[in-house]
């Protein structure tokens, strides 16, 4: 049984007096046990919306998300159904995802019922030690920690539920390079040790290359290319993936200015006709306007007419 299945998911935001914004427009995705799947793309492509819909923070318009075989229902005011507690999320900004007025221990043990006194202290200390923080910091407040340490606390809070799948939405984007490496390694090793699945959302392809088993590239609400990390990196099939790779700066001192992708992500409420990437694509031709290319099935696929021809 696949750990997480996302099936033709569509999510849209309603607006007053304007057409709704279809931020996620038909996405299929799978994550297995112990597997790290990265979702990459520019801001505004629907990555975060997809992440929120996967954990039930947003209700899908159509399609569904299944976690361990059961359908994920949108979170309401009551407690989550017990079968979904092992689906956890880590947010981008550890400054706003932790409550500044509550002690670390009480925040990470929020979901843990029936713990008192010594048992509570032990559990809190244990969780903190698993993310590389000393147990003695349990009684401190978030402001006493650096950004990287706060993100560790947020991870400890997710681990408290003994998760089977973690959805991490840009977990290291707000950190500096060294803390990025620390937190990324921590997440990856937790996944390997606990056979936990992870949906790792990032705009940084270079970082993704170090951690992910599978990469899915998202553009304007759809996945345009998917494949095993090395394969996708070494022979990208979609022009958008190639552009993302070309934009990554390299610290080799050769002073090569990375290549920018011209144009911006279009308004998802008015997506271009045909292929959604066409207006920014250097290789677009007639067929791209007339017929939208579809993402094929299988572990390696790209939604591009040219990739299709190359494949054959």
């Amino acid at each position, binding site marked *: 049984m696949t750990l997480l299945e996302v099936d033709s998911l569509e999510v849209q935001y309603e607006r007053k007096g304007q057409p709704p914004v279809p931020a996620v427009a038909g996405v299929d995705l799978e994550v297995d046990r112990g597997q790290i799947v990265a979702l990459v793309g520019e801001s505004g492509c629907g990555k975060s919306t997809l992440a929120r819909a996967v954990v039930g923070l947003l209700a899908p318009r159509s399609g569904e998300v299944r976690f361990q075989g059961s359908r994920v229902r949108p979170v309401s005011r009551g407690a989550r159904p017990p079968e979904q507690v092992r689906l956890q999320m880590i947010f981008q900004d550890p400054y706003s995802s932790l409550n500044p007025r509550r002690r670390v221990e009480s925040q990470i043990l929020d979901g843990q019922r029936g713990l008192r006194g010594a048992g509570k202290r032990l559990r809190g200390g244990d969780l903190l030690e698993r993310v590389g923080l000393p147990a003695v910091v349990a009684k401190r407040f978030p402001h006493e920690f650096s950004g990287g340490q706060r993100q560790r606390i947020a991870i400890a809070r997710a681990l408290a539920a003994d998760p089977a799948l973690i959805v991490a939405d840009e977990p290291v984007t707000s950190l500096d390079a060294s803390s990025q490496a620390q937190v990324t390694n921590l997440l990856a090793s937790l996944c390997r040790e606990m056979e936990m699945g992870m949906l790792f959302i990032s705009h940084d392809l270079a970082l993704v290359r170090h951690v992910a088993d599978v990469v899915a590239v998202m553009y304007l609400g759809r996945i345009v290319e998917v494949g095993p990390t*090395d394969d996708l990196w070494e022979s990208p099939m979609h022009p958008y993936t190639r552009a993302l790779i070309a934009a990554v700066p390299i610290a080799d001192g050769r002073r090569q200015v*990375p290549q920018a992708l011209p144009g911006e992500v279009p308004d998802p409420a008015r997506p271009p006709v045909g292929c959604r990437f066409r207006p920014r694509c250097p290789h677009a031709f007639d067929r791209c306007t007339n017929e939208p290319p579809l993402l094929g099935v299988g572990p390696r696929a790209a939604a591009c007419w040219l990739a299709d021809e190359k494949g054959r």
Partner: protein
Amino acid sequence: MSAPLLEIDGLRITLPTRRGRAAVVDGVDLVLDEGEILGVAGESGCGKTMTALSLVQLLPRRAQTEGRAIFRGTDLLALGRRGIRKVRGAEIAVVFQDPMSSLHPMLSIGRQMTEHMSCHLGLKGATARARAIELLSRVRLPDPEAALGAYPHQFSGGMRQRIAIAMALACEPKLLIADEPTTALDVTVQAGILQLLDSLRTETGLSVLLISHDLAVISSVADRLYVFYAGRVVEAGEAAALLARPRHPYTDALLRALPHAERKNQQLLPIPGSPPRADELPEGCVFHPRCSYAKPQCLMARPALVELAPGRVAACPVDPLGSVAVQTAQEAVR
């Protein structure tokens, strides 16, 4: 050779803490030549931003500075409030990390751009408008005329950063301080901003002080590089040579921590621990508790910057990477 555009000499910045004043920047010497992009790298909290802000006197009020920062013959640190106002925004402009907080959300782009020009250049009305359009097209903002009537929220992060750069360029500054200008942006947009900085330097001879924690960003445009750690310069030199063969263990560790396109399936190598607080600095070399090459001598005294080659300095008494370099060179000779 002509005098450098900016010469910082013995800069020390202290802030009050519970244990008395602590130096967040201590003994920084830095030289920036005309028409050069100078990179300043280091982790958060190592004094990069404080150094930059001291140049335009935008430090927190309780900060005290010592030393000199000579910019075109004037000591910026000694200028009074009126004096610095003539320099700040006119001769030295600053672009910050978050373009949303540096633009006023309720004023149109046109208003924000022209207000600044009337203040420094005395431009009004149609002249100011024309100048604003010219600047916006210089930063390659699509449809600059329409942009003047629009508000910041109508632009994406990358476009807002371009607008912030256009505003900074309004008075033809000699020096642009760009403090983490691409950190809040996507890689594709980041590439565009880096290209823009590079072409502004080539086209207009603009000097840029580029601050970033990301050595890859700095590497792509900077001519020379200063690596900061705990308020000090630990290594400096020509960017290409420095990144190809770092000599200070901290620079080396920073490079290893970066995700690298060509290094696949490898664990990232973070630097253990975190930078020390300014009021809890370790004895001797400030980096020794996190350094994998530390020797007893590192605890003895604070290492000074040593010139390794012309224009190349590093502050490491052990110099473990230097001996490696010598060894490999010897092997190559054999």
